[in-house]
């Protein structure tokens, strides 16, 4: 119960701070913060696969891009479509895509899973590039944000501040739900998948079902991020569904760290800032990206959150040290 009220306080404080941002930040930075929130959800959903289930996917952009493209396609082709319906249509499409892809990939894991997801990502990218009539091909699709209809009143989404609040509420809720998910039965089943799938089978778990549920859930969350990405930029290009978009999320998660829940959120923050400033300075952004990957893998496998956690623990070293001692003493006596 104590834990519960603590988390509620943290959520409340974060909510208040975020709600004050439009007053504090300039427009440029508010736009960046919106982008960070969207990518944070994308990264969090990816880490449920990589960090929690131990599945390395190179195809997460399929779902992100699917959400983004369906939103744009629906808005372009259905005049007068409401915001909620655009979200609904895109989410349902993403869910179907995840179920179909998930069922095809169920039986594979490890390197093979990575290879297959990459191949499928390329397939979707190829379709998006070639199917110009629908996706706009290389030109992409430009859209307008429909206004938000709340039943009793409508709120225009043309102003960044209004859209920021919508993002904060919807994406924020999704990120909190993902966090809650890690504490539910299914969330704990995901950990079992990472630790020992073989043993799970002998405890009554259906591995295929477990994977399909996880794959669909993370795909849906990535799709939701994609939908808001489309709304935010009012434009969707084939980049949204490219392997580069998968690389981007991989980098965010890896830089942020996979071991703690907030790692990928931190990663998204760092990534967006780096990308905004570094790509101004240098045209060789991919080179830096490659170097960051290699250096992180070799020297900082825990990511930035890993560094922060260990510094934090050093502060409380006395407390933890004693706790560790007590438990080892117990083992010896038992």
């Amino acid at each position, binding site marked *: 119960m104590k834990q519960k009220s603590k988390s509620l306080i943290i959520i409340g404080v974060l909510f208040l701070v975020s709600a004050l941002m439009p007053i504090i930040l300039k427009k440029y930075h508010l736009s960046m913060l919106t982008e960070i929130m969207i990518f944070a959800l994308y990264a969090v959903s990816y880490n449920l696969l990589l960090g929690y289930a131990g599945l390395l996917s190179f195809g997460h952009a399929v779902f992100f891009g699917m959400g983004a493209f369906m939103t744009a396609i629906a808005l372009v082709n259905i005049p007068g479509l409401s915001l909620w319906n655009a979200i609904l249509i895109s989410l349902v499409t993403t869910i179907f895509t995840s179920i179909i892809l998930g069922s095809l990939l169920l039986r594979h894991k490890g390197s093979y899973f990575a290879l297959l997801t990459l191949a499928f990502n390329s397939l979707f990218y190829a379709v998006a590039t070639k199917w110009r009539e629908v996706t706009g091909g290389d030109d992409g699709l430009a859209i307008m944000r429909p206004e938000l209809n709340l039943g009793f009143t409508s709120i225009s989404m043309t102003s960044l501040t209004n859209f920021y609040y919508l993002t904060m509420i919807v994406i924020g809720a999704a990120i909190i739900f993902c966090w809650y998910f890690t504490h*539910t*039965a*299914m969330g704990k089943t995901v950990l079992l998948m990472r*630790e020992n799938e073989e043993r799970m089978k002998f*405890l*009554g778990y259906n591995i295929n079902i477990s994977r399909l549920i996880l794959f669909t859930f993370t795909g849906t969350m990535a799709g939701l991020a994609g939908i808001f990405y489309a709304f935010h930029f009012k434009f969707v290009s084939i980049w949204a569904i490219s392997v580069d978009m998968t690389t981007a999320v991989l980098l965010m998660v890896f830089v942020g760290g996979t071991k703690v829940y907030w790692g990928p959120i931190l990663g998204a923050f760092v990534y967006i800032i780096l990308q905004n400033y570094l790509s101004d300075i240098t045209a060789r952004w991919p080179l830096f990206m490659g170097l960051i990957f290699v250096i992180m893998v070799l020297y900082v496998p825990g990511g930035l959150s890993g560094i922060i956690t260990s510094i934090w623990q050093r502060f409380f070293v006395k407390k933890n040290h004693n706790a560790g001692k007590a438990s080892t003493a117990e083992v010896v006596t*038992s």
Partner: protein
Amino acid sequence: MSDYINIQNIHKDFSGLKVLAGVDFKVREKESHAVIGPNGAGKTTLFNIISGKLKSSSGSVVFKGQDISGKPPHILNRRGLSRSFQITNVFQELNVFDNILSGVRSRYGRRYHFFKNPYHDRNICEKTESIIDEVGLTSAKDQPASSLSYGQQRALEIGITLSTEPELILLDEPTAGMTREETEQAIRMIDRVTTGRTLIIIEHDMEVVFSLADTISVLHYGTILVSGTPEEIRNNQLVKDAYLGEE
């Protein structure tokens, strides 16, 4: 129909290599049955077939009157069959509580639930605690499995096997690699936790076998040499020649 589990004429080939060549035996309800035999006799293969890990080349396993051969492990587990592994097979980075919890909540149908936190379910937590107590890991409850001593890991292995509250328990060499003292402790624990349940156990240690088992089958080169009570096995000339004589 009085047979609780009936193993009928099980054959198993691994790409031409015959491992099991017609295994037959029956176990009655609430009986403790030991399968003994030299290394390479096919004991673990037999367990893998009964528990659904492998499919037999031919033959059938009948459990409570139903043919269960070829059913996947998770279905067999839901029908009340649970097994342990010879090589410790636990969730290494999870703590003891979460290890046991995994099976308990599966039994309570909390496998894929999206909204409920299993820690908040009193029945599940109490059941988990009681299994931890039964296998003697209470003091190590919050430790990750990887930090446990070998003996504790083996106890955890049995605890996980018990966590789905099975009617039929298959234990694959539960005391393998233990010291004399640990073995004795383990026997007492196994005896205690399997009371009122049906047990099939693979064991090398004759002391364990004779102190735990009501009936024994001797597996020799892929077939059952003889089945009977410990007394009958001890006095059987065939067994003496083939197996016990080597000790």
